[in-house]
């Protein structure tokens, strides 16, 4: 492309994708979900690796018959519930209203939008 195009793209989706508003939405979402995915994957990998290779450590008793392995396993439940809750809170606060606004604009431009 040698010169700037004479007019903006005709496809409302392409136009919407190029708006700073959408770029910002995508960046925000990716900045949450990708690091969070990396975090829970590493945390789970650590659990599986310890179960395979650090059995003495996992077998250490903490209280009564409750050992590190059980606590570590239960912490995987806690972290799963926590991350799900954090994500829902994040999406409700930071994503939904912007997404709805972009959706409304695109759908008005595509004359009805959805079939």
């Amino acid at each position, binding site marked *: 492309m040698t010169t700037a195009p004479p007019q903006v793209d005709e496809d409302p989706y392409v136009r919407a*994708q190029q708006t700073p508003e959408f770029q910002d939405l995508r960046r925000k979402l990716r900045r949450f979900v990708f690091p*969070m995915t990396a975090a829970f994957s590493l945390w789970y990998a650590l659990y599986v690796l310890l179960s*395979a290779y650090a059995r003495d450590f996992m077998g250490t008793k903490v209280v009564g018959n409750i050992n590190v392995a059980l606590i570590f396993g239960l912490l995987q439940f806690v972290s799963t519930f926590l991350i799900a809750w954090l994500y829902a809170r994040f999406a409700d606060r930071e994503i939904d209203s912007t997404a709805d606004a972009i959706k409304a604009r695109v759908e008005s431009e*595509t004359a009805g939008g959805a079939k």
Partner: protein
Amino acid sequence: MTNARTLTIILFIILVAVTLAITVWASRQTRTATDFYAGGRSFSAFQNGMAIGGDYMSAASFLGIAGLIALFGYDGFLYSIGFLVAWLVALLLVAEFLRNAGRYTMADVLAFRMRQRPVRSAAAVSTVTVSIFYLIAQMVGAGSLVALLLGIKTGETFLGMSAATAKVATIILVGALMIIYVVVGGMKGTTYVQIVKAFLLMGGAILMTILVLAAFKFNLSSLLGAAAEKSGKGAAFLEPGLRYGKEVPGDALQTFYNKMDLLSLGIALVLGTAGLPHILIRFYTVPTAKAARRSVLWAIGIIGTFYLLTLALGFGAAALVGGKAITAQDAAGNTAAPQLAQALGNRFLGGDVGGASLLAIIAAVAFATILAVVAGLTLASSSSVAHDFYANVVRRGEATERQEIGVARISAFVIGAVAIVLAIFAQKLNVAFLVALAFAVAASGNLPAILYSLFWKRFTTSGAVAAIYGGLGSAVLLVAFSPVVSSTPTSWFPHADFAWFPLSNPGIISIPVGFLCGWIGTVLSKEAASTDRYAELEVRSLTGAGAH
């Protein structure tokens, strides 16, 4: 035992009658393709969350994990954790995007910016393969379980049937019911069956957990202590290592393989869920992406709670029933939960009658569990055959809604019939690993294709086709050359030895192969990815613009 059997049969009949009534009612509400494939997208987040739970918590989860914990202690818990953490992949990376951009099947998103026919064909092949593996495991399980739960032993007869005949009859009955749910009730009927099942399963598990804890005065430590003592394995029973990643003294290589097998299983469990077609289509049954998010939150809540309860059930069965009594009934431990129910009933609910009653109730719950899961699997595969293969590959998008639903119903019938026949022939084989294999295939073929489609601009048709067939093919081939199929006494072919792949779980190799194939297919393909279509997919998947 006879009382339990009569009560069990009565409860089974009630369950079948109720679910059939729901199905007939649902069929009157099913007119359009959206009704048939996606339940009219009219379910609430809570309803769908329960249905996801009902779709996901299979007999392998309920009876299988409880049995594993009862026999091998802590290692059964590894499964629960993988099955639960997996939901974060679905929540963060897949559910809402798929709901926004797709319509009826997984392939709607995979083929969004690709050439329709190759991608949809590949997706249909993979959907049917995964679903059939999973179906066979459930149906063979159903056959043995119902025979066991009704107390039909080898040499005994039931309504004039021997144990072997009763198993075949059960497989055919389960198959016929799932075909009826899907053909008649479509997604609406299937969803309500799954919701009913989720309530029954949670109710049963909560009741048994309370009784188990009551038996140990609500002291978790003494429950664990009693389980460890009765197992005869002491503290090792509460630690990882009795079942998975076993250390073989003096054989460093086998020890290494065992550990790799454990890691391989762990990876497949976590990455498989978000690629299981019968789970993915559930996200289309709610009106918006926000409702899809909320339904996954509900699902995580009930699935997580359920796996915590199975911990109590498994250790409870180890402590109150004991490994010897369990393996005497079923070597794989699948009857641990029903046996525990009987023991608890005997103790708390008035002796033998109480024991028989609780056993009958839990047997009916297990039956409901199986029915709900097989219906979901049949629906997912018939939807893919009709919508992906028939409507978009064979008819190139020219089929009417009526024709499409007609084909979906016929496919449900054919797939159901094929599954019945395969399950009857597979009865003598070790099928438990088929669930793990279904997860491995979903993680190796479907998940790479889904993630690349959603997040990688350059991804092309060749990449998508390569990822699906590469991941699917490598997972199945590796298992074919694993100890599961040949070389050990428990293999399908114990006397042959072509097992050059040392692990039973292929995921650790096949998942990277799937991702790699998708990447290679893309960089080697001559066509360039359409940036306009990717722009549209991005905007649609993130905002819900133009969503169906």
